[in-house]
């Protein structure tokens, strides 16, 4: 947990997802996450990782609200154990229920602009499309869809899942995303601390690049030095 706290610090992350699990009754001396990562400094985002239907997800997040006392949560309802793609029908249903109960729901979803719109209409507070399957490290598979989702929503757009290296995060930010959610790419890198720092720099670089307004792409060369005064 100490290493985890160090990596979070190096990455500059402001939000950390947490899971709801049974307290270890037999080993009471086991350290608690809150002893290492201060919820006053880093926002804890309870999430429903490991839930495969709406009922499980709702139960988990209601418990989470009871532990922490805050309403910001991440909803993730998976549909398939092999590809870990989100089950979007259950996800949409859960978003509606949670929003009505007063939760602020950040929603993990596939990279489908139509579904992203429906989630927004259902009251989602942030759209979190996957770049690629969870833990795959493939990077952003469908840039076009992410771009379309960016155009259609003013909600925070966060790429969740599938990033493999720092440059993937830079691309996400250059597409106009507001942030990235990363675990495996850092945790399983050969040098996690260095990778955490690389991701931080990539996110900053990508955001700056997006805000700077890139040049148009052209088929042919354009001289970068002035033509006037050529001898």
């Amino acid at each position, binding site marked *: *947990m100490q290493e*985890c706290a160090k990596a979070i610090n190096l990455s500059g992350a402001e939000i*950390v*997802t*947490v*899971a*709801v*699990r*049974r*307290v270890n*009754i037999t080993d*009471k001396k086991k350290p*608690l*996450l*809150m002893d290492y*990562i201060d919820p006053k400094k880093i926002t*804890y985002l*309870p*999430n429903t*990782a490991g839930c495969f239907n709406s009922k499980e997800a709702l*139960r988990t997040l*209601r*418990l*989470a609200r*009871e*532990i*922490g006392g805050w309403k910001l949560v*991440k909803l993730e309802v998976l549909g398939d154990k092999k590809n870990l793609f989100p089950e979007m029908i259950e996800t949409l249903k859960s978003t509606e229920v949670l929003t009505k109960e007063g939760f602020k729901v950040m929603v993990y979803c596939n990279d489908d602009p139509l579904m992203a719109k429906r989630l927004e209409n259902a009251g989602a507070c942030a759209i979190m499309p996957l770049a690629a399957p969870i833990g795959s490290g493939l990077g952003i598979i469908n840039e076009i869809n992410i771009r379309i989702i960016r155009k259609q929503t003013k909600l925070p757009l966060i790429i969740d899942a599938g990033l493999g290296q720092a440059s993937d995060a830079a691309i996400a930010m250059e597409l106009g995303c507001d942030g990235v*959610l990363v*675990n495996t790419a850092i945790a399983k890198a050969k040098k996690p601390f260095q990778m955490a720092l690389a991701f931080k720099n990539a996110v900053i670089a990508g955001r700056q690049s997006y805000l700077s307004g890139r040049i148009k792409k052209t088929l042919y060369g354009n001289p970068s030095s002035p033509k006037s005064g050529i001898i």
Partner: protein
Amino acid sequence: MRKKIKIKLNGKLKAINNNSTLFNIVQKNKIPLAKVAIELNQEIVDKKKIKSINLKNNDKVEIVHFIGGG
């Protein structure tokens, strides 16, 4: 001898005294109350009221907290 009842605490069978409250369980297991949520038979329990909640035979108690994970 006091009569015992059986409950399930976080999935494990436990024999406890007949007149135990949820508060007794929390105390006995040194649960940091501020950092957990408690469920009794799949219903969330108001932590302020655990002193007045008596446990019955076959009750299922779940005590959960946050761990790292996304």
